[in-house]
């Protein structure tokens, strides 16, 4: 299909080029406004900042002071990277276990994971945040455990789907040759699971990086904020919103995402397709 050239292809190309410009326009608009003096932002959002409207990096400096953006960035990065790593490691092991050991526990665990995928966060938000506080999980390290628990459903489900397609003979051969289950898993099974690991990692990273409500309820706000929390705090923490700082922080929040997207675009898109087919 893809190779056939369309009739009047250039009309479509022009149409989609215009549409693409319209698509990135909201982001460009925020970028433009981040260099504008704050009083002009809500009054004249569509003008290019010149002379008296132009404030150089003031909004950025101001915003970073207000919400400690780099701390928030560090927290977000730490929580996302380690949560995803822990999720991948623990759930792939668990999925292998419940696929290979036929027991009542395996069946129950599988269906509970499936079930947890349709439970909305509001259902558990109050009890989960209270429980996390009681168990002293209100730190960036503690929240990793919460993410492992709440993200396990989807991850276990996806790994199970893949493990079932791996022929049993490979593992049996390894075991007969004297591998312990741990060696078998890490030397034979885990390398085969790599494509699924990437899919799970991308889906979970997109969720955890952007998640607002869970860290807001679980983390101790006074000491740690993630990027979405910091941005929302900019609005909630002060009576009237400092639009200049807001625009600058929005730009800073988007930049890492765009850099990451450009770097692993192919994996992200493939991961989404693979995730959708199995989910």
């Amino acid at each position, binding site marked *: *299909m*893809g190779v056939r050239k*369309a009739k009047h*292809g250039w009309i*479509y*190309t022009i149409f*989609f080029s215009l549409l*693409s410009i319209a*698509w*990135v326009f*909201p982001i460009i*608009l925020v970028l433009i406004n981040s260099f504008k003096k704050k009083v002009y*932002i*809500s*009054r004249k*959002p569509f003008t290019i900042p010149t002379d008296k409207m132009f404030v150089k990096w003031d909004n950025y400096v101001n915003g970073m002071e207000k919400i400690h953006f780099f701390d928030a960035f560090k927290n977000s990065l730490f929580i996302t990277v380690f949560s995803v790593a822990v999720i991948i490691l*623990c759930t792939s*092991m*668990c999925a292998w*276990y*419940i696929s*290979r*050991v036929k027991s009542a526990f395996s069946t129950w665990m599988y269906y*509970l994971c499936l079930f*947890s995928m*349709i439970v909305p*966060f*509001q259902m*558990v*938000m*109050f*009890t*989960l945040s*209270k*429980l996390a506080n009681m*168990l002293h999980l209100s730190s960036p390290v503690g929240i990793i*455990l*919460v*993410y492992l*628990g709440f993200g*396990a*459903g989807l991850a276990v489900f996806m790994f199970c789907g893949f493990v079932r397609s791996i022929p049993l003979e490979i593992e*049996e051969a390894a*075991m007969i040759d004297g591998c*312990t289950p741990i060696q078998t*898993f890490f030397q034979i099974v885990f390398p085969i699971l790599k494509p699924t690991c990437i899919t799970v990692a991308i889906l979970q990273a997109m969720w955890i990086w*952007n998640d*607002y409500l869970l860290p807001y309820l679980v983390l101790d706000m006074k000491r740690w904020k993630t990027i*979405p929390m910091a*941005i929302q705090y900019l*609005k909630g923490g002060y009576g009237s919103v400092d639009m200049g700082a807001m*625009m600058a922080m929005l730009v800073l*929040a*988007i930049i890492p*995402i*765009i850099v990451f997207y450009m770097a692993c675009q192919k994996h992200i*898109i493939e991961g989404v*397709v693979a995730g*959708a*087919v199995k989910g």
Partner: protein
Amino acid sequence: MQKSIKKYFPIFALPTLAAFTIGFIIPFLLGIYLSFCKFTTVTDAKFVGISNYFKIFSDKTFGHALWYTAVFTIVSVLLINVLAFTVAMLLTKGIKGTNIFRTVFFMPNLIGGIVLGYIWQLLLNGILAHFQKTLTYSSAYGFWGLVVLMCWQQIGYMMIIYISGIQNIPGELIEAAKIDGATNGQILRNVTIPMVMPSITICTFLTLTNGFKLFDQNLALTNGEPSNMSELLALNIYNTFYGRTGFEGVGQAKAVVFFILVALIAVGQNYLTRRKEVQQ
């Protein structure tokens, strides 16, 4: 082999099981129990039977939020899927620059709900300022604002799924239909759409549940203004919990109702569209 793996239960399954118990099973069961209680924190719960559920019905904001969410979900599901499918059809025709377009359309997906909400607040308030209005002027503005935002965010994602579905259709099928004299409309209706039905199932499922569970975007864009009129269900539940003291039990009961609705939608939708899929 089973036996030797079984001995390693504490290493393989226990960490996930423990976290899953803390992060999901206990909060879920406790949540159901607390919906029958009056409480301000987990430890001072007093059993009150189903009175929390009765209070939901006397709470007018919940009915409004339910209705608002239902209409919002239907409108956004239809718009997103129709537009995403159309774009996917056009982008599988071998147009120049397809890869760039795909990249651009997908990008908003990676941006988080809070950030998205504020980006669109700026843009939409800027446009509405020309008419001396703002997004929070009436709930209709908030409604369409959210619809536009969701289209912008999700069309790219659904488009990617549709594109992979369309590319999986064997070329011979379309060729054969053409030789038999089918028009483009007939090919679309009788070949393409039935063949991409699995993608349609997935995309409607994702857009339905995303729309119904929407929270961050709602919070950032309008925060339910004016006076809770643009409040979706998730935000309504949140405000019941954290905005009104003494209503925690009602909030939890609302959350249970919300969960049942989401579960019914998910299961029902899956059943309905799966039936229409063709066996390959």
